[in-house]
Structures are given as structure tokens and as C-alpha cells.
């Protein structure tokens, strides 16, 4: 069902001063696979995600995409490799309109008067309207300021931004935190929809139901170390919880 290995990380280490956030983590992501990243607070999940998205650089280790080693030195480099990230908090810029947010960092220009680059607002509005509508979230206009939106709508805008440029990999850091149940279901649908399109997904979540409902494979981190990496159907949520919190089996 899933294809070849698209993304591979080898022995990834990262420390912040005295805190070792990642102590040598290996992982793989296949094409069209949904990988759930699980772990207690401070396990190092966000750190791993930030390394992949170029927000921070790793101290040690290698990242391969399609078997080729890549150096992801900044967010733009990550996006250029076809990796899109939806961040936990820093997703949107409140003071800008929806369509500017969707295109932020890659605004579309058109040339006027023989070469002066001017924003092509019309095109950006049309395209962002299309993507947002695809996701089936209620929306009246893309000319609204983001600060006026509801939580679900904001998340939709953030995801639309990731979707727009035909990414190969989408990373979502706690996409459902702080959302209502209905909105959570919506996001789950969207994630499954990515898979249908052949996009690989890495997502972090604390909701085990969400994870078991969507993920193909589940990877558990604890204090910067990978402690579990299993197919969804081979494990139960009890296994995951035990690994997350290092609960000993007393047989």
C-alpha cells in the first residue's frame, strides 16, 4: 500500500545548552504514509519537526530525501524540498489577510510597466479560495484579516498554506489542540485526504483516538530517544501509553 522510503533521518541529535532534546533518533517515512509522532511533554517531538522544517539546525546526524542527503539550513530550503509544516503556535500572522497568509513567503508577483514586480492579489485570492474550499471548511472571504477567524478556520488557513504548493511531505505539530470535537474530525478527514493524494504526513498529537484513527505507523519518543516504532494495527493504545511513560511490565 505504501511506496518507497521518501524521508530518512539517521542518528539525529540536538541539544539546547544543557538540555539534550534529541539523543540520536533514527526514523523513516514512506511515500503516502501517515506517521504519528507521540510522546510526553518535552520528549523532543517539536524539536524533530523543527529540524525537518528548517526552523532550527541539527547538531549531528543526516537527513536523506529520496536517498539523497540534504542539508535543511532554513525554512525556505525545507519548503523547496517539498516539505510543508503547520506549526503548533507560530502558524499565522494576525494582521494580514487570509490570502496573504496562505502565500506568505512565496507571494505571487506580476510584472507591470515592463518589469516592475507588483503583487498579483487577484490570483492569490482565487487560488487560496480554491484550496480552502477544497477542505470543506466554512469560509466567507479570503480578504478577511486572520485575527477575525475562529480556531478551526485558522487551522484551515494554515493547512491550506501547506497544501497549495503540492508538497511531498506535510508535517503537522498538534493540529487538533484546542479545537472542538467537530473540527478535530474535520482535520482527521483532511489528513486522510492527504494520503489519498499520495502526500506523506508526519503529525504530532496527544489524542490517541485521533492517532489510531488516522496513522499508518506510530513512533514514540521519550526524553529524546525513540522507544517504539510500530505499524498501527500491530499495537494497542495501552502499548503506546506504556512506552510513553516507561511503565514497567510486572509479569
Amino acid at each position: 500500500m505504501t511506496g518507497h522510503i521518501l524521508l530518512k533521518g539517521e542518528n539525529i541529535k540536538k541539544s539546547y545548552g544543557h538540555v539534550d532534546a534529541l539523543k540520536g533518533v533514527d526514523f523513516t517515512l514512506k511515500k503516502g504514509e501517515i506517521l504519528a509522532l507521540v510522546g510526553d511533554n518535552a520528549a523532543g517531538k517539536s524539536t524533530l519537526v523543527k529540524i525537518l522544517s528548517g526552523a532550527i539546525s541539527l547538531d549531528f546526524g543526516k537527513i536523506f530525501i529520496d536517498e539523497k542527503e540534504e542539508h535543511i539550513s532554513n525554512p525556505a530550503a525545507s519548503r523547496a524540498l517539498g516539505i510543508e509544516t503547520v506549526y503548533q503556535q507560530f502558524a499565522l500572522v494576525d494582521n494580514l489577510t487570509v490570502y496573504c497568509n496562505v502565500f506568505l513567503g512565496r507571494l505571487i508577483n506580476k510584472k507591470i510597466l515592463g518589469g516592475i514586480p507588483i503583487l498579483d492579489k487577484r490570483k492569490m485570492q482565487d487560488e487560496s479560495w480554491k484550496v480552502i474550499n477544497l477542505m470543506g471548511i466554512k469560509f466567507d472571504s479570503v480578504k478577511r484579516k486572520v485575527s477575525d477567524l475562529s480556531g478551526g478556520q485558522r487551522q484551515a488557513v494554515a493547512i491550506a498554506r501547506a497544501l497549495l504548493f503540492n508538497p511531498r511531505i506535510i508535517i503537522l505539530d498538534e493540529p487538533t489542540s484546542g479545537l472542538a470535537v467537530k473540527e478535530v474530525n474535520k482535520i482527521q478527514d483532511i489528513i486522510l485526504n492527504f494520503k489519498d493524494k499520495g502526500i506523506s504526513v508526519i503529525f504530532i498529537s496527544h489524542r490517541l483516538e485521533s492517532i489510531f484513527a488516522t496513522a499508518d505507523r506510530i513512533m514514540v519518543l521519550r526524553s529524546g530517544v525513540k522507544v517504539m516504532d510500530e505499524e498501527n494495527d500491530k499495537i494497542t493504545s495501552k502499548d503506546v501509553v506504556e512506552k510513553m511513560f516507561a511503565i514497567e511490565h510486572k509479569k
Partner: protein
Amino acid sequence: MRRNDILLRFALLIILAILIFLVNPNFGKPANLINILRQGALLYILAIGMTIVILTGGIDLSNGAVLALSSCVAAIAMERGLPIMVGIIISLAIGMICGFVNGVLVTQVKIPPFITTFAMMYFARGLAYIFSHGRIIYGFEKSFRFIGTGNIFGIPMPVIFSLLLLFIFYIVLEYTSFGVNIYAVGSNSESSRLVGINVKKVRIIAYLLSGFLSAFAGLIYTARLNAAEPVVGASFPLDAIAAVIIGGTSIVGGEGNLFGSAIGVLICTVIINGMNLMGISSLWQQFVIGSIILIIITTQTYTKSAKINIPILRSRKIESFEK
């Protein structure tokens, strides 16, 4: 910035103008109105730079000193017989260098903008004195003085320049990627970085533009007075900041625009002009401007939170987007 914030300010400007006119009809004479525009033009050019820097979440306390430095050096160059064009280019280059240094210190060395530009204020002022030996440099060619004293169709050159700059920078802020990036960086620099915007570059360019505009204003100032001296402009940073704030630009960045700043400059200039006409001591000027700042910002907060529903004051209704 919402439309009602601009309207509120515009209404204040009109009310002020009418009040002053009623007290002293001389205010309404075309010659006086042109005069107000001319007086406001210089401040407005500085305010454009200040607006851009404040939009990115910074501040520029050095614009007056940079103005003094760049105009003194240009004046010395022209005094020594260099062509006018060379003098102008030297001045603008110095402005941009100062701005660039500000930007680099803020973004690379991570010194807060407040301290960086405060230090630059001292530094540029000191250099202005050193180069000019503290004297006034005066007497320039007619063609140079034209940019400060000339008229085209009765409109003073400084006014034409400031309108031109308003037009150019309005387009830059509203219709270019750089403009959107300025707002993005000011309102959330971390988000901006994460989507791949080169935040440092945007900030550096903002300071560079402010330096450039300070030097530009310095040229006009020198041309108008036919003199350059190292002491000018000590009050310019605060004047510009006050005008920008009255114009509704948020001091934490990411919100505001150049029309607001234009109205802010006009409000300040009209007040000063009106008080002069009415023979009120100039010692009161700052008092009135300070009160206006507090009143207008308070009013804005209340109209926002009280959701006053006067149709014309209502936030722009967002047209439903048709596909």
C-alpha cells in the same frame, strides 16, 4: 488599520481646521494652506521612514542626527566645488550607510533598536560636528536651492517631493512582496521566519530606507534654508514618532499606513500653525500635541471596544468574495 481609525483622524483634522478658521479666518487663505503643506513636507518625509521602521517593530531615534550629518557632508562637498549631483549622491549614500549600520546592529548583533539608534544619534551628531567644525555652511547654487524653495504651478517643491514619496512608498507597502513582508515581520517575526521570509533582510532594508529618507529630507532642508549646520534636527525623531502615532500606526509594529501618518503630520502642523496665528505662545505647542496623542489613542480604543455602530465609522465591511 481599519478604515474608521483613518476616518476618526481625518475628522479630527477637519474639526481642528474649522475651529482655527473660525477663530482666525486668515488660516483659510490659500497662501497659509500652502505654507502648512510646505512646513509639513519635511516632517512627512521623515515620518515615512519612521512609519516603515515602526511597522517592522523597530524605532529610529537617529533620523535627526543622520539628517544633520548627511547634509553637512553634502554641503561641505558642494562648498569645495563638487557638482551638485555628487553632493546629493554623497548625502543619500551617507544616510543609507547610517541606516544600514543601524539595521545590522539590530539584526546581527541583536542590540535593541532603541539603543542602537540612540547610539547612532550620538555618533552621527558627533561626526556632523567634526566634519563641519561646528560652523554653519551656507550659500549654495540656485539650481540646488530650487529643490527647497522652488515651485511648480505654485506648489512648493518639498510638497511635490513628499507627495511623490507618499505615492511610491504607498505602492511599495500595499502592492509589493516587500511591503507584505514588512507587515508580516512587524506583526509576528517568528511566523515570518518560519515561512521562509528573510526577516533580517527586511529589517535592514527598513532602517536603510529610513536613513535614505532622513538624508533626502536633509537635502530639502539645506536647500530651503540655504545653510547646513550640525545642530539641526534634535527634535525630529520625537516629532516624527508623535506624528506617526497620531496617524494610528501601532507602536509594536505590523499595523498602520502612510495615509495615517500623513494625517498625523497634518494634525501636528495645523496645530502649530493655528497656534501661531492665534498668538498663543509656542511653549504650549507640545502640550497640545501631547494631549492630542492621548485623546486620539484613547478614543480609538473606546470606539474599538464599544463597537459603535455609526455606518460611516463602521469597519470596512468585507465584501463576500465571488469566484
